[in-house]
């Protein structure tokens, strides 16, 4: 990947890591194209694709009209016929206008054709509440995709993963829903940090008392909670919901006997429920305390920064819940 990022600049922003990952993907494989609204000349509404158009040209970096159903579906059709598209859905909330190609086409056509069709497409989409973007621009819907057989669901929380998981997603022969968190775009980190394959969770912080499973922007808050102590938290960055690395989670909870799941998505019928249900079943006898979840309450995201702030799990709430778990038994 050195081609895309100068060796000396190990400390880069999440957004630059995404850009580097795409640059490498487009450079290393002539079948890779980037498709989306203003991803080209404009460099992306958040600047994520800056420079790619000038570097690779309009054949590889393709601007589209505001026609998600059309261009997401076209990306799926292109993936069936030899290209490996990265298609951007500007806000995750916009899947409301282009779900069919993801739900009924990309996720199912390999299966329905008994493997005759391969669909290597990456659906890049961005989420991240906490910027007063309002109820239609703040949703975390990863649970929807994880519920659909045939889709991988990847959520990089670190700068290194932003680049490496994106690259792995492009190289993957399957449809991948790649969820970026806007709140992390400006965050800096070491892009050469210990790489892990797609499908493996990372123990971001070792600890003994409570296992905390999370992903996306909540990772930082969980780490901050771990810093607060006194309980010793083992923080696991899941990195992908599909594949779901339960081994790493189970192994940790077996040691700690306690599990707290933290995510930005709405808690009810959310992604944490699956992890809670599995651990509750597999570690029924080993659990010292009930599995707890911290997610957003069941309300749309309000515009007001004050109201919004109060709805997302804070490091305070995370550490308080962890302490409470430890106190319970």
């Amino acid at each position, binding site marked *: 990947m050195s081609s895309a990022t100068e060796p000396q600049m190990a400390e880069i922003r999440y957004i630059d890591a995404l850009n580097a990952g795409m640059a490498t993907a487009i450079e290393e494989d002539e079948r890779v194209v980037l498709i989306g*609204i*203003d991803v080209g*000349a*404009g460099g992306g*509404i958040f600047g994520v694709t800056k420079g790619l158009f000038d570097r690779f040209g309009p054949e590889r970096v393709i*601007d*589209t*009209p*505001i*026609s998600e*159903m*059309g261009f997401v579906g076209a990306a799926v059709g292109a993936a069936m016929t030899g290209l490996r598209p990265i298609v951007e859905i500007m806000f995750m*909330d*916009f899947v*409301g*206008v282009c779900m069919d190609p993801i739900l009924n086409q990309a996720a199912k056509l390999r299966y329905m054709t008994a493997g005759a069709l391969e669909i290597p497409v990456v659906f890049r989409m961005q989420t991240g509440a906490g*910027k*007063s*973007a*309002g*109820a*239609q*621009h703040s949703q975390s819907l990863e649970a929807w995709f994880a519920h659909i057989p045939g889709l991988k669901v990847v959520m990089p929380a670190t700068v290194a993963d932003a680049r490496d998981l994106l690259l792995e997603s492009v190289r993957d022969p399957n449809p991948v829903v790649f969820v970026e968190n806007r709140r992390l775009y400006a965050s800096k980190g070491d892009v050469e940090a210990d790489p892990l394959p797609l499908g493996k969770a990372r123990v971001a912080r070792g600890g003994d008392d409570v296992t905390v499973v999370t992903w996306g922007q909540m990772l930082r808050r969980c780490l901050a909670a771990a810093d607060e102590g006194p309980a010793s938290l083992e923080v696991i960055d899941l990195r992908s919901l599909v594949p779901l690395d339960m081994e790493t989670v189970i192994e940790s909870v077996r040691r700690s006997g306690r599990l707290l799941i933290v995510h930005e998505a709405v808690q009810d019928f959310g992604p944490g429920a699956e992890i809670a249900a599995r651990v509750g079943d597999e570690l029924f006898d080993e659990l010292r305390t009930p599995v707890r979840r911290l997610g957003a*309450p*069941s*309300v*749309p995201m*309000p*515009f*007001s*920064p*004050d*109201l*919004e702030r*109060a*709805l997302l799990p804070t490091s305070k709430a995370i550490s308080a819940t962890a302490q409470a778990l430890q106190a319970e038994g």
Partner: protein
Amino acid sequence: MALIRAFETRVSELYRDGEIPGFVHTSLGQEAVAAGVGGALREDDYIATTHRGHGHCLARGMDVDGMMAELFARGEGLCHGKGGSMHVADPSQGVLGANAIVGASLPLAVGAGMSSKLLGQGRVAVAFFGEGAVNQGAFHEAANLAAIWDLPTILVCENNVYAEFSDSRTLTRVPSIVERAASYGIEAAIVDGNDVNAVHRRTIDAAARCRDGRGPFLIEAETYRWHGHYEGDAQPYKPEGESAAWREKDPLEVSAARLLEHGEASAEELERIGAEAGERVESAIERARELPPPDPEEAYTDVFGD
């Protein structure tokens, strides 16, 4: 128009200064469309608008204080701080809301047209949308429905040349929205979107047609987005001189010139109107600044009704 100009000019500054959170999209330079349409509607008519809807709301008579307070995310805002610039709404004024999903205003306005028709209310529903939204399936489906059901729905396309960073003429082989309306058998007309009188006349006619049960009409208003897509957009994609040329056609100056020419208003009067608009907005700002944020409980209310 003076009010819209004053409102958005200040909102743009307030956003830059961090006093207004979230995303803000201004319609500076497009005021004639909002004013021309708004003034042609009946008290009880409906409008459904977009992310760029401040002008449409103000032209419908939306309360300036309540609207500014909403942009400031105050508890006394029209939506109690839960909507914001992209979602400001006031059904009591027939404003079904700004909407952050491109194209969404169209099916909603079709639905409002259904209500009016089936309940025999003679109300007109206006869908505002940009030329970029025309490439959304929602436009296509909604236009066809309005046509086959002969609904009292006016499709007002504000063709301001750009969709975000892209020149919309490069994203279709048929940049004329009026031509595309033919696909649905919907009569349509192009108007100078910087001439409030022209927009107003067209809308009066369209609304009359609707009330006569003659079905939908599409108005393509040619205008220009002075500012960036969002406040803060540096607009490298705009060609040299284009903005300047359009500012020559400032809708406020166009109508001012005409009013003076026909002696329908004196320079002093126009001056006063502008000044009053400015004061109206300033007082709304002062008020909004003093208001408290929403009661924390607000976050949990209005999810369901009973």
